[in-house]
């Protein structure tokens, strides 16, 4: 039974698969054709667009060139006009300045003459006064100096001399003390050791006798 079943089913299935494959192949062929047509269409469109683009670019460049030419012409015209105006303005200004300079020079000559005259007169007046003032000041200065000098001699110099003398005396006393001290120290260190014991004893007794005479023991 099974064998019979299998001998029927397997060929049938194979047939069905074959039919399906044939069908799919036909569909693919169909789609390929469609796609090829679409590619052709698109190629045509692209060529058209490219042509339009070039046309637009050419137009733009042509317009740009025209604009630049117009602008250059306009600029040249403006420059020419401006140069004319500036030349005429410069001439006018030069004239005015020249006039001003001439006027100023004239004015300066007049003023400087006036100043010179005034200055001369002031200087002569001043020199006369200054000389007089200087003489007065130097006289006063001399008098002050004389006063100070006499004051210095009377008070300062006297005090200074006194201070120097006092200082000298003080220093002499100080040096005397120092010399005395040095001599005493030397004498002490030399004599103290060199005096014999007997003499020391005799000098002590002498001191006692002297003390008795002076009334120390009364």
């Amino acid at each position, binding site marked *: 039974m099974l064998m019979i079943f299998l001998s029927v089913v397997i060929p049938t299935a194979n047939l069905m698969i074959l039919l399906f494959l044939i069908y799919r192949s036909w569909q693919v062929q169909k789609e390929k054709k469609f796609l090829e047509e679409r590619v052709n269409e698109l190629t045509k469109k692209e060529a058209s667009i490219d042509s339009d683009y070039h046309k637009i670019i050419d137009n733009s460049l042509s317009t740009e060139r025209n604009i630049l030419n117009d602008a250059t012409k306009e600029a040249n015209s403006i420059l020419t006009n401006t140069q004319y105006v500036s030349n005429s303005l410069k001439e006018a200004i030069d004239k005015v300045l020249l006039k001003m300079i001439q006027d100023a020079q004239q004015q300066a000559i007049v003023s400087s003459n006036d100043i010179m005259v005034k200055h001369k007169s002031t200087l002569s007046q001043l020199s006369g006064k200054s000389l007089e003032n200087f003489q007065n000041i130097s006289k006063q200065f001399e008098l002050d100096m004389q006063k100070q000098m006499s004051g210095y001699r009377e008070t300062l110099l006297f005090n200074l001399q006194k201070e120097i003398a006092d200082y000298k005396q003080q220093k002499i006393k100080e040096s005397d003390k120092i010399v*005395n001290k040095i*001599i005493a120290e030397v004498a002490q260190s030399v004599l*103290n050791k060199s005096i014999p*014991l007997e003499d020391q004893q005799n000098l002590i007794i002498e001191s006692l006798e002297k003390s008795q005479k002076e009334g120390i023991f009364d």
Partner: protein
Amino acid sequence: MTNMGELILSDFFTTKSQANNFSARLSAIMEKIFELDFNLEKNLQEQFGNKKKDKFISLLTENEIPLESSSHLNKFFGQIQETVSALPLASLTFAIEPTEQILKSVSDWFLLNLKKQVLIEPEIDPSLIAGAVVAFQGKRLDSSIRSVFEQICANIFQSTPVKQ
């Protein structure tokens, strides 16, 4: 009876410190004086030495003190203590450390000239050179060589004219 004023102790001490030491040793003997086995000579020898012991015995004999009588001895020792504490004090500044001989000669000088014993309180000042500074009962005299020396120096400096 012994007259206190005539007690001469310069054989035993000359300075204040020696007197204090003597007094302390005498007190030590006095503490033992009434003991039954008290031996005077032995105690004197122990405290003062052989030489001073003999001098002490002589002092006792001179003052007619019976050596075997503890009460007489005690009374005499007390008198000595009073004499020591009543001795006048003289401060003497020496140029050198005084020897026993110098101290004795000074003490003898006081005995001879002042007719009394004077305790010496010695001080040392090497700057005196020689001689002494004597101070007694508030009075003082510097008769050292230093004072003479300073006087000579002062005279020399005063008499030397200083160039102005």
